[in-house]
């Protein structure tokens, strides 16, 4: 019946398109509207990318990885090594850290950036296949601990690997040209990654692949008994997630200029946990949840860091505890339960 579909005001599809147009305009204008917050806004897009990627396995498939930060750190190192190798011998470059000054031409820098970001993504995607082949045999909390172990071990290994600078880390050249232009470039690089991942997932979750991911989450044993290629789906999903986290790590490497293994690259207790909290706050297993969660979390984090200095970790810890204990469904989960009509979900007779 067509009469029942007509709701008050604009149809839901038109409202959705209007919402997307406003968000795109906001995304394009943000670094110019708030020029003082360019680096902060770039960091917000980084959170959106890693949260969306984490939700692919954590929310949609029920595999809570605490080791996704491995791809972030590995992406940083891969990008750095590629960029340096285009111009210098990597071992010589890193051993001269602090002493020798190495100049990069603009062409070398941008070629390194392009190859580094793509290369980091591809390398991390392959890593996810290899690591996943072993760790996806683990279920529930064992998977979480197993992947966390991978990230911690990688950090320790890299910090003892002199070829890539050991515990001191690596320095990359500064963005050639105007500093403010550089900030805008990094903002748009992160934003492009975030939007690309969002669009990809928006499509992916409507396919059979997306349904298979949810089947693995709801009852993996049943999915196996029905003949689903469960391992194949898990590996492919994690590999896509790893590509984007690795690429985001690569962009971070260029943005930060200098990074070291334990606190910046393989920062298991910071970014590795933040991405999980973003998703929990926004709503696990929903398309918009990680985005909403990343925005809320990032704002909360920056406000406490600025106005509650000294207590910021306590505030953050309290937020995590409250979210995990009292608000597991997250913002989107709450809205979907309370306002299903906002999402075009109709049940029973209304659906006829």
């Amino acid at each position: 019946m067509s009469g029942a579909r007509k709701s008050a005001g604009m149809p839901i599809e038109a409202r959705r398109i209007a919402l997307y147009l406003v968000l795109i305009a906001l995304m394009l204008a943000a670094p110019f509207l708030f020029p003082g917050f360019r680096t902060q806004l770039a960091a917000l897009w980084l959170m959106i990318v890693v949260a969306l990627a984490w939700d692919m396995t954590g929310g949609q498939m029920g595999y809570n990885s605490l080791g996704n930060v491995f791809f972030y750190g590995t992406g940083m190192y891969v990008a750095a090594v590629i960029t340096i190798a285009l111009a210098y011998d990597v071992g010589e470059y890193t051993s001269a850290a602090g002493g020798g000054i190495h100049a990069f031409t603009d062409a070398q820098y941008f070629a390194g950036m392009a190859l580094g970001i793509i290369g980091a993504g591809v390398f991390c995607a392959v890593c996810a296949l290899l690591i996943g082949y072993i760790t996806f045999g683990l279920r529930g909390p064992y998977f979480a601990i197993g992947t966390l172990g991978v990230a911690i071990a990688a950090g320790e290994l890299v910090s003892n690997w002199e070829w890539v600078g050991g515990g001191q880390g690596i320095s990359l050249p500064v963005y050639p040209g105007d500093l403010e232009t550089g900030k805008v470039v990094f903002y748009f690089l992160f934003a492009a990654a975030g939007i690309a991942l969002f669009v990809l997932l928006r499509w992916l979750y409507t396919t059979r692949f997306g349904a298979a991911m949810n089947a693995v989450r709801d009852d993996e044993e049943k999915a196996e008994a029905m003949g689903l290629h469960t391992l194949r789906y898990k590996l492919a999903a994690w590999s896509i997630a790893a590509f984007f986290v690795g690429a985001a790590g690569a962009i971070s490497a260029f943005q930060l200029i200098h990074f070291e293994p334990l606190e910046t690259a393989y920062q298991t207790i910071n970014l590795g946990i933040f991405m999980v909290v973003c998703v929990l706050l926004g709503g696990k297993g929903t398309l918009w949840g990680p985005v909403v969660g990343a925005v809320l979390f990032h704002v909360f984090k920056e406000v406490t860091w600025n106005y509650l200095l000294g207590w910021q970790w306590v505030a953050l810890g309290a937020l995590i505890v409250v979210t995990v204990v009292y608000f597991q469904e997250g913002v989107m989960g709450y809205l979907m339960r309370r306002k299903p009509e906002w999402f075009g979900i109709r049940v029973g007779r209304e659906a006829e």
Partner: protein
Amino acid sequence: MSAIIEIRGVTKSFGGVVANKNLSMTVEAGGITGLIGPNGSGKTTLFNSIVGYHPIDAGSIKFEGREISKLPVQKIARLGLLRTFQQTRIYGAMNCVENMLISLPHRKMRLAQSFARNSAAERKRAAGLLEFVGLYEKRLLRAGSLSFGQQKLLEFAMALMNEPTGLLLDEPTAGINPTLINGLVDRLKRANREFGITLFIIEHNMRVIMDMADTIYCLAHGEMLAHGAPREVQNDRRVIDAYLGAH
């Protein structure tokens, strides 16, 4: 009729407990075969062995002439031999239609095909099968919010969606309202007759299994007690003793 599942000398033990001891049975293609026995007699263990849920200690299990006792669960399912669970298992957070659509036969699906959406024909088939089990009205509800009996019907419809050649049903009528049992029995028979699916059924409801099956196997303490046509098994002294506890 030819044999679709051939079980020869299958033994399975858990520690010191022998759950299945040297069992041999044949499931005829196109028929309905029953498996009965008191609680703890090893029926579900045998089902688990057939579908590859755990390795067997000795013996051979063949499906359509192919040895399957060393294959993993997913491969056996993709060959067209499915099972439903005694403790019903459905995808709780997805609605009934989604449950049906993810149950399409995966033996044919390549990775590239999984990146497509479901076709109109597949949606129509899903709707038709939900109608077949009487869940069409509930199709947009979360599967987890259905009653236990309805979940059982959904699980049965999902199995049909998968187009299996053989279907192992573990107590299909347990937990179902007695007035609905007749409808379910009728649907099981129709699935067998109209879709040509061979059924192998564990059942405690004697009236149901005697009515449906062509051949019945009876287990007790992991060993074969009796087998034959329903009437023969029903009148077998040892079967009656096993159920009433004469041992």
